[in-house]
């Protein structure tokens, strides 16, 4: 049987089930909870409260 020498395109080589780590998501959720934006005279200040 003839062999296929062609490579798969890059996009197909990427596994379909690639997901970020749980800790990355947890970090983002915690970051979101800690971040508050304070409005002051049309200015917006970011504050990270741990």
């Amino acid at each position, binding site marked *: 049987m003839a062999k296929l020498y062609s490579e798969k395109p890059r996009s197909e080589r*990427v596994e379909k*089930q*690639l997901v970020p780590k749980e800790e*990355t998501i947890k970090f*983002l*959720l915690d970051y*979101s909870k800690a*971040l508050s*934006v304070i409005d002051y005279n049309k200015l917006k200040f970011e504050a990270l409260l741990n």
Partner: protein
Amino acid sequence: MKRSIPTDAHYVSAYMNGDESALCELITRHKQRIYSFIYSKVFDKDIAEDIFQDTFIKVIKTLKRGAYNEEGKFLPWVMRIAHNLVIDHFRKSNRMPKFENKDDFNIFSVLSDNSLNIEKRMIKGQVESDVRRLIEELPEDQKTVLMMRIYKEMSFKEISERTGVSINTALGRMRYALINLRKVIDKHNIILTN
């Protein structure tokens, strides 16, 4: 009764109104597509992880600032942010190309610079000239043996033949030469290290 699945817009507005769990829903919904997109460009899981994180930090900041315009295009917007961050990453790595050490190979195991740097070369030169000056202070017979042994790398047999003394005498002169050098060094607190 069929329940309709809430749209992204629904969760975005809930999040902007303070519902933190809406963000969790948005991330869970789209994490696979966004992460795969980033990974397909950078082909490195750690970098993809970093860019994914930075993407959502931007998303969170924009939403919390209320600077997001809801046009029903949440995912394309996030993808655009990720795309821009990927471009930033490549710009940065082009500016500063770096060699990544892999687990099984470390470039520094085969690369090393054994040559002395300019400071060490200067110190070495000074130490050597100091030693020369100290040797000049030795008695003539000891100095001759030491010069022949150390600088001319002659054997004690050759030294004894050249100077016309026995090997034992040559050995003894060498020994005294070293003892006297140490004495002078100790006496004057001379530091001869590199």
